[in-house]
């Protein structure tokens, strides 16, 4: 898919995703080695966005499995369309039960879910398994199975084997430690907060009205907040939100009042706001 690490970075940038060298290198290797990519990191650093960007670059369809507590096989893999099956049975054509049964367990009545969708068909796909850590441990067993062989068995239909393996991205906020076995299947990428220069480029790209000088100040303030001992550190998503807020407020430079009034966009906990207010000398007004 890619010719070099630089090629990855350049093509992701065309879609609006600015990759650090670590991100570009790992995406390049995941493609070369044909391994799933496990992306971990704090909220809002662009994990989900990365998968979307890769799909766009590859001209691939994005198939997304959003994990949550209680997600199960019937949501992740496939399910039979019971309502439709019942209708078919009660429509009662002139046939034996065996014939009916064969019919209602056919393709027509199958509801494929993301994992099955991702391995069927010949078109290129990116499978995004988002927030894997939210799913229960049992689901990991299922993922492991699918990601090892890229095949799924539907007892009534037989085994589906991928003719074209999808590019797989798993994301996690590390709210729970994923199993060692699953980790071993994957290339591991930790995305942390970007360095100053990269973050400045990201905000300028996402918030076109922002001039270079204000972007610089914005990123510096965010950097200072991240060095504080806060409950929740502001992420790239918050930097972007803050920049948009500043534009909306018509601020073309930062000053005490503007920062104090908009700090809530960056910090989600009142005690963090208080701490930052003190450390940034905003309470001296």
């Amino acid at each position, binding site marked *: 898919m890619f010719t070099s*690490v*630089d090629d990855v970075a350049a093509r992701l940038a065309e879609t609006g995703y600015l990759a650090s*060298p*670590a991100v570009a*290198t*790992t995406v*390049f*290797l*995941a493609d*070369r*080695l044909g*391994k799933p990519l496990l992306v*971990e990191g704090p909220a809002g650093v662009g994990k989900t966005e990365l998968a979307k960007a890769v799909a766009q670059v590859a001209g691939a369809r994005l198939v997304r499995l959003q994990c949550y507590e209680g997600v199960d096989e019937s949501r992740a893999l496939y399910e039979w369309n019971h309502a439709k099956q019942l209708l078919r049975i009660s429509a009662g054509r002139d046939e034996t039960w065996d014939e009916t049964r064969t019919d209602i367990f056919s393709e027509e009545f199958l509801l494929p879910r993301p994992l099955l969708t991702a391995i069927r068909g010949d078109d290129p796909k990116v499978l995004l398994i988002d927030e894997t850590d939210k799913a229960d441990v049992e689901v990991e067993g299922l993922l492991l199975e699918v990601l090892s062989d890229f095949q799924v068995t539907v007892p009534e239909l037989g085994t589906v084997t991928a003719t074209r393996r999808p590019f797989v991205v798993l994301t996690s906020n*590390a709210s729970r*430690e994923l199993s*060692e076995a699953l*980790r*071993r299947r994957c*290339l*591991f*990428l*930790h995305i942390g907060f970007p360095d*100053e220069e990269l973050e400045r480029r990201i905000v300028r790209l996402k918030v076109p009205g922002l001039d270079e000088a204000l972007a*610089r*100040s914005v990123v*510096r*303030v965010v*950097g*200072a907040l991240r*060095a504080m*001992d806060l409950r929740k550190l502001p992420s790239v998503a918050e930097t972007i939100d803050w920049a948009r807020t500043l534009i909306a407020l018509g601020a073309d*430079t*930062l*000053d*005490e009042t503007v*920062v104090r009034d908009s700090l809530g966009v960056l910090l989600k906990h009142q005690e963090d706001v208080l701490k930052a207010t003190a450390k*940034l*000398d905003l309470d001296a007004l």
Partner: protein
Amino acid sequence: MTSPATGVTGVTDGTGVADRLTSLVAALRAHGIRIGTGETVDAAEAVAALGLTDRELLREGLAATLLHSPAQRPVFDPVFDLYFPRGVGAPEGEAAGRDDLRDRLASALAADDRALMGRLAVEAVDGYGGYGSSPGSDGWSSYQTLDRIRPQTLLARVRDEIRARGGSAGFADRLLEDEIRRRIEAFRALVVAEARRRVAERRGRDEIARRAVAPTADRVDFLYAGKAQVAELRRAVQPLARKLATRLAARRRRAARGSIDLRRTLRGSLSTGGVPMKPVLRRRRPARPELVLLCDVSGSVSGFSDFTMLLVQALHDQFSKVRVFAFVNRVDEVTGMLVHGRADPQGLGSRIQAEATLTGWHGSSDYGMALGEFAERYGDAVGPRSTVFVLGDARTNMSDPNLAAVRQIRERARRVYWLNPEPMSSWGTGDSAAPEYAALVEMHECRNARQLSELVARLLPV
């Protein structure tokens, strides 16, 4: 991105790379990172796909293939630096004067040019880090380098330089000094890495990799953990507690199955003509045990006590009752504070210090006084169902160890264990009363999170 200057040196052919990679993997394994053959093969493929021209890409590629969690990264980076160094030997050209070097460092800090800072770190160690009869003949020291270059004294100058060229106006100017401090910190880290690399060249990489790289959080010595490591340890509490809870539950199930009750088995056998057909298992009493923690929270061992208290708190539903007492030279109960401490583990230690009455007229720990006060005031916290853990280094500051108090506690409790964060080899040295206490209660060396979790899994009552 791929100029020769950024590549890996000292590796020219395929076998060289393979050897490096194998040694790198061995060194990482020696640090407790589990790496299978599959990962090693992936890593070799990564090297083939990336080439050797850009060292930073190679670093990321190897990290992606060999590591499985961010906690392993701080171990990986310095080991990588040893096996895939930026350069070998010394830089070319005349050694620069100290002032000249400081001038250039000031500009690099002002521009936040990390690449230049890296090159200056190399130059600094080369010019000022060598010691012995001729520079470098005996070794290389980052400490000596930093002592001569004194990067921290450049703060004001860098700040003024940035301001002079209008690089920091308006609101964000108030952030400037802290920003520069962080850059200086980064430069110090580069100097440390470079000195380590040179020592490795002299002494053999494998030995350095084994000895000089900071261990993963669970192997960090409690007594020497830095601030970042303590924070990392705290994050490890919850996962560790979950693992331990599972193991305790398993032990409890096994214990509940119990041993054969001979009398009841025989009684039951009367109906089968005295042939014991059905063994009757003795049921264990279902009541959960009680736990009492007595923790030295004086400065010298506070990291250890904090961690253990948080761990026990996280395990509290495994017990019918948990009570925690803290002391320096006086004892106070802190059970309540610990419950609230869950929300804010960072603040726990300082709140205990602030709110509990732990010190009398002096601030250093006094085991004799504290143990005596505990036996006297809180004696009834300890009963036949309770297991007591004493946490501390048993350093009495030369005062009376009060062995009678320990005997008294031992008599009332079901079991008493003492966990000592000092290496066993220093028990009894100086003012340590460890041997005296160890003669009365079972004492274990407990130097890091790994040892602690093993001990907890083994010793905690079920």
